[in-house]
């Protein structure tokens, strides 16, 4: 039973990832079509949360590895090139986003890099999805396919579908976060994307059914009920999103789109469970041994409420419309003046002192190095403690003295040369 818990964890993190990073990839792609000042704003909207959103992808990877190592080991080599492409695009995306954000003003290159890399990430993910749904080439339970197995018409269709789904989530998120789009424009864009997503879902579902020689076992009643239930929820959420685009409350379209995506994923899981690697590798065959499952499920399961709680807190802190950050200057310091340190004086004994200090330094270095064999067991820890404590004392005393002397206060009349 535990292997189903691990499977559920993978599914849950995948769902969180698709919903959360889906919107910020979508916002990234939409920024390509936006004007300069909007692009910067879109980047800043994503910048507050992308680290957290992308963590879910890492969680998908490691939970899959720890809980279902068999699946992790055969799926990843099968999609080597698109997955590497995705990772490279993720790096470029993070780079563009962070440097754009740090630049403090609109920079065309970073903005385009962020948008273009968002598109590339989505396309690569679509190709990976297509390859996973079609199933890797296996022999004796290990991957044995070619380098370009992932490239198929179905994979390309999946990529297109995923681009539309992420764009949809992005548009819904933007309705919640910005005031830049007019109601009619949001409605037009959102509804056409919704239509596109519906068409793609149908096409992909039907193509998968015909592409795969094994028909899905929809004759089992429980499975059929779950699957059609998921489809019904997705359709209902789609209808809510259709109604909600361009109409208040602004959070409604995103909630509906998220529900749609999640129920789509659940529908897919209901169809395939217990198969994790199509066509025939089941969760029982790929799961890790009981001791690891137990540790993983307990550890991750116990942490999950906390993770969700502080993620919700972080989202809550940035709720509402995006506002440009308030430019608050550093407040003025308390009054103090600095007396400069006495100037260095030339001294004939300087050389002697330096040589002595160097010898002392070498000896001091030898102490913690445990060089003095016979008494090493004693002198090592003692030497380290003496040195460390001496340095600590010097630090504290020196710091207090410098603070009293005003070394750390702004000089009056300091001019900025930046």
């Amino acid at each position, binding site marked *: 039973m535990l292997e189903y818990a691990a499977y559920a964890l993978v599914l849950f993190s995948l769902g969180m990832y698709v919903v959360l990073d889906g919107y910020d990839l979508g916002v990234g792609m939409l920024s390509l079509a936006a004007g300069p000042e909007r692009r910067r704003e879109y980047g800043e909207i994503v910048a507050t949360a992308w680290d957290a959103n992308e963590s879910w992808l890492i969680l998908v990877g490691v939970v899959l590895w720890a809980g279902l190592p068999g699946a992790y080991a055969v799926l990843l080599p099968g999609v080597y090139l698109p997955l590497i492409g995705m990772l490279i695009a993720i790096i470029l995306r993070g780079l563009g986003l962070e440097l754009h954000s740090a630049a403090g003003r609109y920079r065309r290159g970073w903005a385009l890099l962020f948008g273009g890399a968002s598109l590339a990430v989505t396309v690569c993910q679509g190709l990976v999805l297509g390859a996973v749904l079609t199933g890797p080439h296996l022999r004796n339970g290990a991957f044995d396919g070619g380098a370009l197995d992932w490239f198929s018409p179905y994979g390309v269709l999946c990529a297109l579908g995923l681009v539309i789904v992420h764009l949809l989530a992005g548009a819904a998120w933007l309705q919640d976060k910005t005031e830049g789009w007019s109601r009619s424009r949001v409605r037009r864009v959102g509804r056409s994307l919704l239509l596109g997503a519906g068409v793609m879902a149908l096409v992909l579902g039907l193509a998968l059914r015909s592409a795969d020689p094994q028909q899905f076992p929809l004759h089992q009643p429980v499975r059929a009920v779950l699957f059609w239930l998921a489809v019904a929820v997705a359709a209902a959420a789609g209808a809510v999103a259709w109604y909600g685009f361009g109409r208040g409350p602004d959070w409604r379209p995103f909630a509906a789109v998220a529900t749609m995506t999640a129920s789509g994923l659940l529908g897919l899981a209901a169809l395939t469970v217990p198969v994790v690697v199509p066509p025939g590798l089941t969760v029982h065959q790929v799961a890790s041994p009981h001791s690891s499952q137990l540790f993983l499920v307990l550890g991750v399961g116990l942490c999950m409420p906390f993770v969700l709680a502080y993620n919700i807190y972080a989202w809550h802190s940035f709720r509402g419309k995006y506002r440009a*950050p308030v430019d608050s200057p550093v407040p003025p310091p308390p009054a103090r003046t600095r007396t400069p340190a006495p100037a260095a004086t030339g001294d004939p004994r300087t050389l002697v002192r330096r040589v002595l200090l160097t010898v002392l330094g070498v000896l001091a270095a030898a102490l913690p190095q445990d*060089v003095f064999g016979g008494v090493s067991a004693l002198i090592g820890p003692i030497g*380290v403690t003496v040195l460390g404590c001496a340095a*600590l004392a010097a*630090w504290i005393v020196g710091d207090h003295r410098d603070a009293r002397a005003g070394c750390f206060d702004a000089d009056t009349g300091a001019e900025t040369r930046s």
Partner: protein
Amino acid sequence: MASPAVVELSRWQFAITAIFHMTFPALTVGLSVLLAVVYTVHVRTGNPLYLQIFRFWKKIFAVGFGLGVVAGTVMTFEFGLNWGTYAHAVGPVVGVTIGMEVITAFFLEAGFIGLMLYGDGRIRPRTMALASWTVAFGTLLSTTWILSANSWMQDPVGYRKADGQFQAEDWARILFNPAFAHRFPHMLLAVLISAAWFVAGVSAWYLVKRRASAEPMARRCLSLALGVLGVLMPVQLYVGDGTAVFMGEHQPPKLEAFEGNWTSDNNGYNLLVVPDTDRGENRFHLAIPRLGSVIAQDLGGTRTTPGLLQTPADERPSMWTAFYGFRAMYFTALLMFGTAFAGVVLRMRRRLFDSPRFLRWLVWMTPAGIIAITGGWIVAETGRQPWVVYGQLRTADAVSHLSTAEVAASLAGFVLLYVTLLAVWARYIVRTVKAGPEALPAGPASPDVPEARVA
């Protein structure tokens, strides 16, 4: 059995991505602690200097953390992409450990970093301080888990082998394995130290350039960084020595390789060697006589260092990487110790902020910690070869079924990307440092002064 070319290219790719990734945590773990400390001081005292420090280092921390996250994502997937057999075999042990790292530490950092970086003016200062501490705690926790996972591969314990997989038997022994007890404190100190050198170097640069607007901040940060270094450097040398001794006992080939001897009759300490792996001898070596035996705690100078010929030929690591990785770490560590020591002496003589030569030297020491960490990891990882799980799983047997062209393409992609990225990152740091911190208003001025400065 995969082709040797795939193994070789995959190893290069993993090494490059891992070293590249490591350079970011080497800075951000220590910086996160610095940021948490200065923000707390600012909240408690209201001293604007600490807010200035926080805002300045936040800029470098934000980009470094972001790049560290994306480079870390690469690592997570590479285990399965290139090392499918390894992933399948150790997933029940290492996979779980890294899974726990992601859920307990990584999420903590990622969840709170948005608050810490963009929360100014949106959330209360106390909450900001709490968020900063949470991020710092997360980075330290992250280090703990990762070192636990890696140490288990260095000295595997607490498992049972079944169906080609390592199955966990005793989680307490797996997580707190003997190697972890030595390597974790060593790495924890290393990341704090490398960030301290970075902070000290940048601060010294402002003092060397006599940038008046940044001088208070530079003095404050320099004093903090050198204070930390003065305390931690001796401890680090001690802990590092313990780690080397431990490795010498548990992985003798690693010690034999990094000491640079083939035969076991050298009582000297090698400074330079040119090893000839095929013939099993050094073409050239430069050694200090007797020092090797002194370091091995025989003051008489007769004890000899074991050589690599003691290890069977198919279990020998490369002497080149282990020897020079170790020398890069060790020699840099000696420089670091000397500099920190000089810093303590200068502080006691009240000359810390007015010694141009020392400050210029500190600027050169900026990347010292990162160099030492890189060298250390090269020893740790290449010294363990040809095993990926020491004594249990060979690297050559751990690779995925991939074509040479695929791996060559991805390797080329990563090299190209990472070289560009390093250049961009270095340029960003240089620009941020040159731009300097935002202005600190002079004197306890009337309330309209800040506005005048903004305008």
